């Protein structure tokens, strides 16, 4: 469904998982995908660093309950993004 701001693209307003080539993955509400990168609002980041839940555990919990939006706004640079998909599709 998303929101009604169609000029911002189909993912605008949708909570997405942004995977990167590195150890980080991001979950947040997609504002816009631009030439600069993916702009996320109320986002959280997971780092695969051997501490805390691993990637699968993190995504399982995020899929069931959502994430705490610890970062008000962030941009994931376009050249770091390996995939982007709605969290609701997991």
């Amino acid at each position, binding site marked *: 469904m998303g929101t009604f701001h169609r000029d911002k693209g189909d993912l605008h*307003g949708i909570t997405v998982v942004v995977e990167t080539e590195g150890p980080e993955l991001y979950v947040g509400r997609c504002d816009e995908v631009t030439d600069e990168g993916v702009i996320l609002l109320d986002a959280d980041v997971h780092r695969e660093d051997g501490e805390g839940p691993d990637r699968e555990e993190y995504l399982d919990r995020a899929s069931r309950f959502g994430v705490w939006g610890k970062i008000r706004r962030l941009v994931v640079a376009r050249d770091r993004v390996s995939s982007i998909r709605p969290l609701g599709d997991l």
Partner: protein
Amino acid sequence: MPYSPLLVKPMREELTSAGVEELRTAEDVERWMEARKGLSMLVINSVCGCAAGAARPGVRMALEDDEAPESVATVFAGQDVEATAEARSRFSDIPPSSPSIALFRDQELVYFVPRHRIETKDAEGVAVDLRQAFERFRAEPAAS
């Protein structure tokens, strides 16, 4: 900042006209939480597009099911701030999102539909999800 009461009135009525009890204060929430037995459902309403397009009509469809909860209530996020905070305090380990839907059996939270599982669905998709949860938690024995 809360929207104009005039603007949100139809958003409230879309649920209340289907028999959903509106909880406007923290005291209302406390009373409802303590009184409910069996299967009950709390809808956290919101002004966002996925509440209009999926959550509210999906809840209305699901409530037509024979297995629907006996007690269904709603709080309005961003409008009835204290009521919403009181409701969320009952499942404070779950990140806040709206719209969202919580299903309880007696005093236990047994199922939760966060916003991200509403925003990618249409109303029928939300209704299907809820009907399956009603059926599952009617059939499954309660934890002792």
